[in-house]
């Protein structure tokens, strides 16, 4: 009796997990398969699962239908540029919030938290105006600079820095380490799982971001991948879903690859935090 309810519970659990996984996996799978189909196959009803012959040519079409290499380089520059600047600002800010007592600390931290809750759609207009005054619209800077400070990063790192025992910092002070050195040589390595997680979130967000580059750019030289791919839609009259999906594959593959390699750190970050 006891045994059988247990077994039943595990079955239900397994079924639910598979169902949830399917919901997430299905679109990916569909994108993957569509990327290899011909257009008639895409519109075929009832739909087929596997393409009759695997159309690798779709990728070539996608790649050659625009300056794709340019898009990729731009995307990499933007995502990595944003990440570097965010780390350069978030680490000292988080260190100060976690470790210094100063006037207005709680107020300032509150402001940072509010920034966390404001979506970019709300504030893009004034930023656009400001950037255009500075003559930065339609440059890569317009994609990087507005994201230079990450409230999310400050918040996450502050939590991680607060876990570091006081004595370790004091030991570093007695070891004649400057505050800068304590930050980067002692605190940052100790917060590595959190840093990796944050880096991944930030990278993925800006790699995938569609809204901001769409607004801030209007020429191919500075467009990023997501915007470039939607340009495929307009190409050659009708919507070439198979080519668009091939483009999307190129968009998500790097992220899947990074995720695959960083998985261990991400798990660690979340396990630490729930302890």
């Amino acid at each position, binding site marked *: 009796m006891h045994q059988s309810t247990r077994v039943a519970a595990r079955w239900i659990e397994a079924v639910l997990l598979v169902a949830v996984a399917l919901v997430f996996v299905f679109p990916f799978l569909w994108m993957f398969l569509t990327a290899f189909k011909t257009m008639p196959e895409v519109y075929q009803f009832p739909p087929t699962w596997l393409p009759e012959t695997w159309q690798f040519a779709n990728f070539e079409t996608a790649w050659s239908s625009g300056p794709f290499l340019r898009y990729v380089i731009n995307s990499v520059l933007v995502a990595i540029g944003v990440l570097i600047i965010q780390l350069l600002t978030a680490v000292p800010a988080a260190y100060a919030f976690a470790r210094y007592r100063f006037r207005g600390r709680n107020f300032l931290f509150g402001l940072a938290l509010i920034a966390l809750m404001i979506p970019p759609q709300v504030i893009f207009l004034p930023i656009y105006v400001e950037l255009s005054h500075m003559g930065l619209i339609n440059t890569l800077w317009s994609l990087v600079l507005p994201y230079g400070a990450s409230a999310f990063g400050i918040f996450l790192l502050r939590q991680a820095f607060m876990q570091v025992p006081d004595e*370790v910092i*004091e*030991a*570093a*002070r007695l*070891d*004649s380490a*400057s505050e800068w050195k304590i930050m980067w040589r002692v605190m940052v390595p100790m917060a*590595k799982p959190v840093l990796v997680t944050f880096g991944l979130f930030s990278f993925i967000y800006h790699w995938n971001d569609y809204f901001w580059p769409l607004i801030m750019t209007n020429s191919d030289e500075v467009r990023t991948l997501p915007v470039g791919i939607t340009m495929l839609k307009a190409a050659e009259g009708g919507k070439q879903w198979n080519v668009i999906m091939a483009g999307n594959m190129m968009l998500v593959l790097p992220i899947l690859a990074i995720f695959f390699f960083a998985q261990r750190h991400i798990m660690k970050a979340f396990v630490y935090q729930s302890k």
Partner: protein
Amino acid sequence: MQQVVKKYNNQTVVKGLDLVIPDGSFTVLVGPSGCGKSTTLRMIAGLEEITAGDLLIDGQRVNDLAPGKRDVAMVFQNYALYPTMNVFDNIAFGLLNRGFSKKDCKRMVEEIAEIVGLSSYLQRKPAELSGGQRQRVALARAMVKKPRVFLMDEPLSNLDAKLRNQMRVELTSLHKQLGTTFIYVTHDQVEAMTMGDQIVVMNEGEIMQKASPFELYQQPANLFVAQFIGSPAMNILPTDKESIGFRPEKAMLTAGSARTIQPAAGFVDHGRIVAREILGSDVLYYVSGRAGKIIARKAADELLAEGTEVTVSVAAEHLYRFDQETGRALSVAAIKQESLPSGGLG
């Protein structure tokens, strides 16, 4: 230290400390929990701001000097190693920050590692070491900087008893070898007595006495020190104007109620043994006497049974007298006959 005061939010935890720590000494700060030992040490290190007073090292006022510039090294109770660095980097970190070249660092770290027996562990992370080994890394990290002063805050309290004894001996010999000033905080009086050449007993943010271990034991300056140092504590029996005290091992026990045992006895009392503890070589007797509860420590050659009526006597030269109000020690002398509570006389 001159009149050093530390306040936390108007609560004074260190009250006007006046203390000279001689160059090359092994000074132990000892006292009950919360008496301000760690705070004092941290002020010397520069980790706590000094509210008032002056801190001088080699005659130079260092109140406002950053910890890293004071040329002191500290060993923390929980070691405080850098968890992400291996042993080598842990030890080398302070050197690199002080501008030593990579090559010099390597040589110095290897030298120190040899001394503390860590040579084969240099590539390990702290998490992969035992408690004793971590302790050694912490020591090596402090030693390698060749500081003017070593500060240690209960560095042995996380070790098991056997390792603690071993490290105690090692630390003492290390001190002899280096000849550097050690300031060592502990609440363990055995550690204090065995390691220190100067012991500072603190209570509630004040120095109760500063003396050598021998002097501290033989001539406690006040009731607090008398009771804090020694185990079991000194017997204290209050009288009208003053308290008298004597060490448990100085008390003579004789079965029966014979009156004259020790011609020179300064204190005599009668009572019954209510309990006893056999420690191995020694036995502790808890005697309920007329003057109060008395603990006596005897060699375990012959045992007295519980319930035995005994006479307790103490030679006059082993009696201590303390002022009833201030607790301060009065000159050691025989107790006047009439001041004894109810017991007899010598």
